[in-house]
């Protein structure tokens, strides 16, 4: 038999002014199972809580209903109070008679009636409450960072700083990411390499950090605190340990006509290569698509010149398995493909380049050694046109609907750098809007206009036409002067929209994390949990979550690290006990629940059962991992047999509330 205590709070006059609290307490005292029903001035105060605690002890209560403010306010307060005197905290229910009753109604009689009904509903529910114990699950003290750009590096460094082991998985042969390709950074114009490469070195030397370069995540199992990840170490045909990065192989490799990805294909590299001088790990990689030895077995020069004996043509992909407590996604971004933009002649004219290509053209380590020359004829350009928003803010299938965020600033940077270095060059920037919300950002843009005399023209470029004399006609409308312009340019730079890396989508599936329609990872809450994914234990770092500049990326990277550390320092995690559970005797194994679970918390196993007809049968039944389940209840409705139910919000509890309200 239940022994339920009801406690009605006056909340000063907040409740008592519109609800006859004494009448509520009196009415509820007649409800089945109720052994004590009291009212009090401030139930949440210490003396109020003591009242509850004493009653629990004195009447050996099996359930408590507090009629007070919203459970969002004080549910925890009363649960703790109950727990302190030995009553399971989940045997406490709150009837919200302040926010949802006294504050919105004026007539005392009807408000009191409503408060009584809300109280009865809570009593009806608490009758069916079961004591719940939050489960615990151990945390593997190791983090995995997927992506070795600045976001991944920063996250890894911060986690390592806290003393936890971190692995970075980078699909390219070196970490560094996009930032390594960039020349200068806005708004300070300091050299990107100068600030990035020390971090790369730091990462490689940190005893807590393991870098798996030229590797990919191939399988993820498990849940928060307890992920098991298989990492595929792709064959690079060079023994990472033996290779000293001396570069002798690269120098001697006869296959020299391989487009150099690091320089955005603006020049060539060898079949065996080290992407750039400061690469980490500084280890050569053989490109099997071009290496003559790997393609037809004829060459082998690199193997001969390698004094370390690091070349291994027979190397195979290797798979390693590791346990992690937390996973941080830092897969970054890429500029979109501009093939579909015929109007900008990107595919027809080598002098129409993307901004990232311009970075390489201007970079001292780039194809031209830092001198800005036209790719077509290696002459110095005198008129350069920048086109903004190429593929950003588009409502069609060619582009992206969002603002890529970084283009306004890097274009201002480019324009400024060009005007600084080559004052004889005219620079035009065609913009739709100039968006500069950031510290020192607008000042930076104004400097480009005022100090460097960059011509900012409002209007999107309509057409870019390469001409026979090598010049490029740029046609655009100046919306402010209301005239159509034709600019006879030497170079055109397109600020291509950025998109999430293509590897992110399959990764999201493996991690059972959510993505938006643009393939950016969805954060658990857009305001309050911006670096966590909705899947517990998976955190988001950098541009994989949305377009970001470097400082924002680093900030988010550190935030994600902090969140991950917060998880890793725990020996075990307490799980929310209000989770779904499956009644195996009712489960059909149909997988409906699994399909709607946003967290991948449901798995199936074949189990042997003794059936009602006394036979035994192997049945496929669902089981919920309480550490992963967040308790949304989607599965409970998807389940036709009613095998799935939710602790704390069970079918019978909700129906009891319905019954109490409707009667």
């Amino acid at each position, binding site marked *: 038999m239940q022994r339920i205590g009801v406690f009605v709070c006056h909340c000063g006059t907040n409740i008592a002014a519109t609800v006859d609290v004494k009448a509520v307490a009196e009415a509820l005292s007649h409800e089945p199972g109720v052994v004590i029903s009291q009212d009090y001035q401030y139930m949440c105060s210490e003396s109020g809580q003591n009242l509850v605690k004493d009653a629990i002890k004195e009447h050996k209560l099996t359930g408590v209903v507090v009629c007070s403010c919203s459970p969002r306010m004080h549910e925890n307060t009363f649960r703790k109070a109950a727990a302190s005197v030995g009553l399971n905290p989940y045997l406490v229910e709150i009837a919200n008679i302040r926010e949802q009753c006294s504050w919105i109604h004026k007539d005392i009689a009807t408000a009191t009636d409503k408060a009584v009904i809300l109280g009865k509903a809570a009593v009806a529910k608490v009758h069916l409450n079961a004591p719940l114990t939050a489960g615990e699950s151990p945390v593997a003290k190791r983090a995995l960072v997927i992506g070795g750009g600045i976001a991944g590096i920063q996250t890894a460094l911060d986690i390592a700083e806290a003393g936890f082991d971190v692995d970075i998985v980078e699909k390219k042969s070196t970490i560094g990411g996009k930032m390594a390709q960039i020349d200068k950074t806005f708004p300070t114009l300091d050299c990107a390499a100068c600030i990035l490469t020390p971090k790369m070195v730091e990462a490689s030397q940190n005893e807590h950090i393991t870098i798996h370069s030229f590797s990919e995540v191939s399988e993820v199992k498990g849940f928060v605190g307890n992920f098991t990840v298989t990492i595929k170490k792709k064959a690079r045909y060079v023994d990472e340990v033996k290779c000293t990065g001396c570069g002798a192989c690269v120098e001697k490799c006869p296959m020299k006509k391989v487009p150099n990805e690091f320089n955005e294909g603006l020049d060539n590299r060898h079949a065996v290569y080290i992407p750039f001088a400061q690469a980490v790990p500084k280890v050569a990689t053989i490109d099997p698509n071009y290496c003559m030895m790997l393609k037809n077995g004829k060459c082998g020069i690199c193997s001969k010149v390698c004094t370390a004996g690091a070349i291994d043509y027979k190397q195979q992909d290797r798979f390693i398995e590791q346990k992690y407590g937390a996973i941080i996604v830092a897969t970054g971004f890429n500029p979109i493909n501009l093939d579909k933009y015929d109007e900008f002649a990107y595919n027809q004219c080598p002098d129409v380049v993307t901004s990232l290509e311009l970075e390489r053209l201007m970079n001292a380590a780039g194809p031209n050694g830092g001198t800005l020359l036209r790719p077509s004829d290696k002459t110095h350009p005198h008129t350069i046109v920048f086109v903004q928003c190429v593929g950003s803010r588009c409502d069609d299938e060619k582009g992206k609907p969002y603002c890529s965020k970084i283009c306004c600033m890097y274009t201002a940077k480019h324009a400024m750098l060009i005007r600084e270095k080559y004052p004889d060059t005219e620079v035009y920037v065609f913009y739709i809007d100039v968006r500069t919300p950031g510290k020192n950002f607008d000042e930076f843009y104004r400097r480009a206009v005022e100090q460097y005399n960059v011509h900012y023209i409002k209007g999107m470029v309509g057409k870019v036409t390469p001409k026979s004399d090598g010049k490029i006609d740029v046609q655009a409308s100046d919306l402010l002067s209301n005239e159509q312009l034709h600019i006879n340019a030497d170079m055109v730079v397109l600020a291509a929209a950025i998109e999430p890396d293509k590897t992110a989508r399959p990764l999201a599936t493996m991690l059972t994390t959510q993505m938006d*329609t643009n393939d950016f990872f969805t954060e658990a809450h857009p305001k309050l949990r911006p670096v966590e994914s909705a899947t517990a234990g998976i955190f988001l770092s950098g541009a994989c979550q949305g377009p970001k500049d470097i400082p924002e990326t680093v900030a988010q990277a550190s935030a994600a690290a902090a969140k991950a550390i917060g998880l890793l320092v725990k020996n075990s995690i307490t799980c929310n006990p209000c989770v779904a559970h499956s009644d195996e*005797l*009712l*489960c*059909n*194994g*149909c*997988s*409906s629940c699994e*399909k*709607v679970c946003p967290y991948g918390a449901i798995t*199936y196993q074949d189990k042997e059962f003794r059936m009602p007809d006394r036979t035994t*049968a*192997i*049945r*496929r039944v669902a089981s919920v991992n309480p550490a992963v389940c967040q308790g949304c209840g989607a599965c409970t409705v*998807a389940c*036709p*047999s*009613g*095998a799935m139910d939710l602790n704390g919000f069970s*079918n*019978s509890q909700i*129906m009891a509330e319905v019954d109490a309200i409707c009667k």
Partner: protein
Amino acid sequence: MQETMIKRAKELLADGTVSRVIGWKKGEFAYDTTPAVFETAEELDRDFAFDDFTAANVSKYLVKESRKEGKILAFLKPCDTYSFNQLIKEHRVIRENVYIIGIPGGPKLDAEKIKAKGITGILGIKNENYTLKIETLYGTETMPFYEAICGKCESCKSKKHVIYDELIGEDGDILDSNRFDTVEKLENMTAQERFDFWREQLSKCIRCNACRNVCPACTCEKCVFDNPKSGIENKAASDSFEENLFHIIRAFHVAGRCTDCGECSRVCPQNIPLHLLNRKFIKDINELYGEYQAGADTVSRSPITDYTPDDCEPSVVHERGVE
């Protein structure tokens, strides 16, 4: 056809491919075949039937049969293959334990339709050129074949077998059926008319559970209506509400899973057009979330366990048809 099937079944039994055969067994009369499992050639020769009255969908039996030892041969009509596929998708049957022979579909006949013509004392039924010649205690009667076909065959959706190991006869095509016509007709009525229609129909329900128990989508280990813990268990409708409740919840539970095999209406002793409820869901799903045929394959995601961010709001209900 019956002979070909028996011959093939005997071959497969003999060569050990299968150890049992599920099909239909002759009855007392011309029309009362019963789904049955055969284990020997003799049983097949003696009792196996395949005729105009083998309308029953045997795929649901395979939930249990496929879990027994040895492989079973199942003769599946096109509509039955959809049910079987759906059961595979839901992991309810073990595909490897079933050898499927696709056999031609209907139209099958419904003895109740013959009896409804006032023809009684039926001793024999012959199909002569699509005229039924019916021997009765009171003389010979005739009626057109097509006036006696099963409700479920009247709006056949497909003559295609979506799964089989071998076929007897040619495979057919997915048909342009008129199966949503009645649903549409109801949708175009006023709410009061619809209410009256369904009250009239559902008030006939005797809660015999035939619709549920025959339904290949209703394979729950224990139905919520049989489970005292579910809160909605009941054994008989004590009020019109409970008549509605049972059929709404049942239709909802099979929404996105119902292959529209029509067994529910076929078996209803009170001729309640229960399939219309399921078809209403199918029609809504097709219109709101894109064409979807449950059982057409074994992998696609059911529309009810799926979503797109641009799905319509429930207010779409207010925007269409008549209130």
